[in-house]
């Protein structure tokens, strides 16, 4: 791996981890009045995928999309201000943590209803074909819970049928809220289901950011060369914090700290960090800390939306 890639990956991983740790730290102050679904532990998937994409590519995500938004280049200041419900937020305080968007960065929206953005990514990909845009793909992020939804199957089928330029990323963190995949699927075979719809599909174990980057890069190249329709990746990962909120929940009874242990040991931030010289790593970290502090400061001092904002943007 070349070192500039390691720098890029590390900066993005470290930035996302620290942003979310800061959100968790601030959360008890009630300054953030929006449910937060933290990606801590899962950053490797978003970063591995998004670094393999181009700026013009678009992504669609779930309510757990802080990592995706930032990895794709979404504006950090606007994200934090949005969590604070401020007028300077990505949606001027009218979206919250679960409805992040940054059209300029290709983050086309995230949704609280599980599975809802999957067909939108497919529809966006249809528009790319419609307009004969050759060097672009749409990417749909969803969890193992999203696979339970009927719309997942419908979307897979249509994307394969029309050979659309779309990459499906299943972030399998084993849990839909607090329900383990075992309780919802007879077999842990999401990747086989995708294959059955007629697309290449691969399961990537262990949160492996380098493998994710490599495979998605190649899949993207095949798609834009029109050698392939949609591609599917099931990326095995793990959510370290509770489903919603800033805390850990290993005493809640549905999972154990022992289950977490291998994922912490295999933390992709440590792994990629070790590829860098300590000085270079420290430099990245200092810059990121400054950026985060400034984003939180801006959110703090930004005004809330004015009363008349309640009535704007109901219609275009």
């Amino acid at each position: 791996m070349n070192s500039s890639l390691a720098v890029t990956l590390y900066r993005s991983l470290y930035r996302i981890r620290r942003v979310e740790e800061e959100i968790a730290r601030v959360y008890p102050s009630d300054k953030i009045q929006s449910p937060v679904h933290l990606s801590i532990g899962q950053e490797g998937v978003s970063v591995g995928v998004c670094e393999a994409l181009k700026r013009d590519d678009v992504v669609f995500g779930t309510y757990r999309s802080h990592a995706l938004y930032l990895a794709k280049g979404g504006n950090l200041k606007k994200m934090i201000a949005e969590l604070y419900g401020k007028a300077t937020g990505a949606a001027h305080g009218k979206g919250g943590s679960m409805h992040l968007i940054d059209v300029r960065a290709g983050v086309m929206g995230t949704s609280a209803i599980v599975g809802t953005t999957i067909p939108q990514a497919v529809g966006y990909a249809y528009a790319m074909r419609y307009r004969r845009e050759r060097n672009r793909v749409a990417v749909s992020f969803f969890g193992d819970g999203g696979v339970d939804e009927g719309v997942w199957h419908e979307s897979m089928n249509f994307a394969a049928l029309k050979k659309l330029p779309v990459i499906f990323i299943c972030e399998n963190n084993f849990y839909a809220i607090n329900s383990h995949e075992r309780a919802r699927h007879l077999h842990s075979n999401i990747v086989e289901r995708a294959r059955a719809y007629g697309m290449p599909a691969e399961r990537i174990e262990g949160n492996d950011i380098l493998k994710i980057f490599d495979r998605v890069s190649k899949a993207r190249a095949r798609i834009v060369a029109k050698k392939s329709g949609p591609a599917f990746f099931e990326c095995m990962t793990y959510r370290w914090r509770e489903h919603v909120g800033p805390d850990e929940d290993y005493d809640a009874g549905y999972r154990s700290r022992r289950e977490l242990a291998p994922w912490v040991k295999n933390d992709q931030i440590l792994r990629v960090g070790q590829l860098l010289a300590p000085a270079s790593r420290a430099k990245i970290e200092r810059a990121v800390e400054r950026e985060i502090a400034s984003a939180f400061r801006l959110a703090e001092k930004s005004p809330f939306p004015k009363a008349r904002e309640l009535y704007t943007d109901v219609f275009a």
Partner: protein
Amino acid sequence: MERIITYAEAIREATAQEMARDSSVFVLGMGVDDHVAMWGTTAGLQKKFGRMRVFDTPLSEDAMTGVAIGSALAGLRPIHAHIRMDFLLLATNQIVNIAAKARYMYGGAVKIPAVFRSVIGRSWGQGAQHSQALHSLFMHVPGLKVVAPSTPYDAKGALIQSIRDDNPVLFIEHRMLHAMRGHVPARPYAVPFGRARVLRKGSDVTIIAVSYLVPESLRAARLLEDARIRAEVIDPVSLSPLDMRTIVRSVKKTGRLLVADNAWLTCGAASEIITRTIEHFQGARLPVPKIARIGFQPVTCPPSRPLENLFYPNPRTIALAAHQLVRGKRRWTPRGEISREIAEFRGPF
């Protein structure tokens, strides 16, 4: 000279003209390219515009609605057609949770210029799941526009307006309207939303009628002539936004309001129109007008012909309701029978 075509032809013409004008307009839906062509409303479009712009879909209302929304996010203008409004329930998650809200919850960063066509069914025993009229469900949700034109002229103009609108629009047809004929100019034109159409002038009672109950109410108005009652018949055309100015102006003149909704009454368009009318009169410290409403019976639609006839309002029952508003309990037996298009309908469904 008047150019007379059917409601279905008017829809086809509006679609074809907009597709020719704007390459971002496309049509998707089950059966849009088959020999029925949604009763002619999509006939010949695929041949003219190609398979990319007119295509049949898998039976996946949920995902295909999401596909339409995703394409709209990318700047296209989809027309997603449903042969029955009942099937729209499978698309409601995408329409209500995404299409209606995207503009607002993404802080104005995106727009969803999408048209969702759907058809209310009736007659020949179509029964429980081919007959529902769910416009009030969508009127309830901020961010959606809901139109239900009743004449060929408005069908063409309102569809063109729906396609050009930058917001999600529910465009509601009625199977009994498709064969109706009327004057339709050949040129493209848009009928603006939020402007009700006074289809018949009268001074004794205002009848606000929705969708197929517009022609039925016009027939009722003719029956009322026998009792020397002059009914004013108004078609809101667009239910959301709703043109309350025209409605209130008429009720001020007649002092009586009958809403004939082609739907159930509870929490319906009729409830909304009546409430807003009362609010207006109260707010203006005017005496509140006499009010009544008529619609589907509060049961599931039965297929058996005698029961089906009881389920729906018809010109006679509408006329009776209006007569009662004007003359109180005085007895009156209007003539009138089941309308021809209902009696003669044998499909296609």
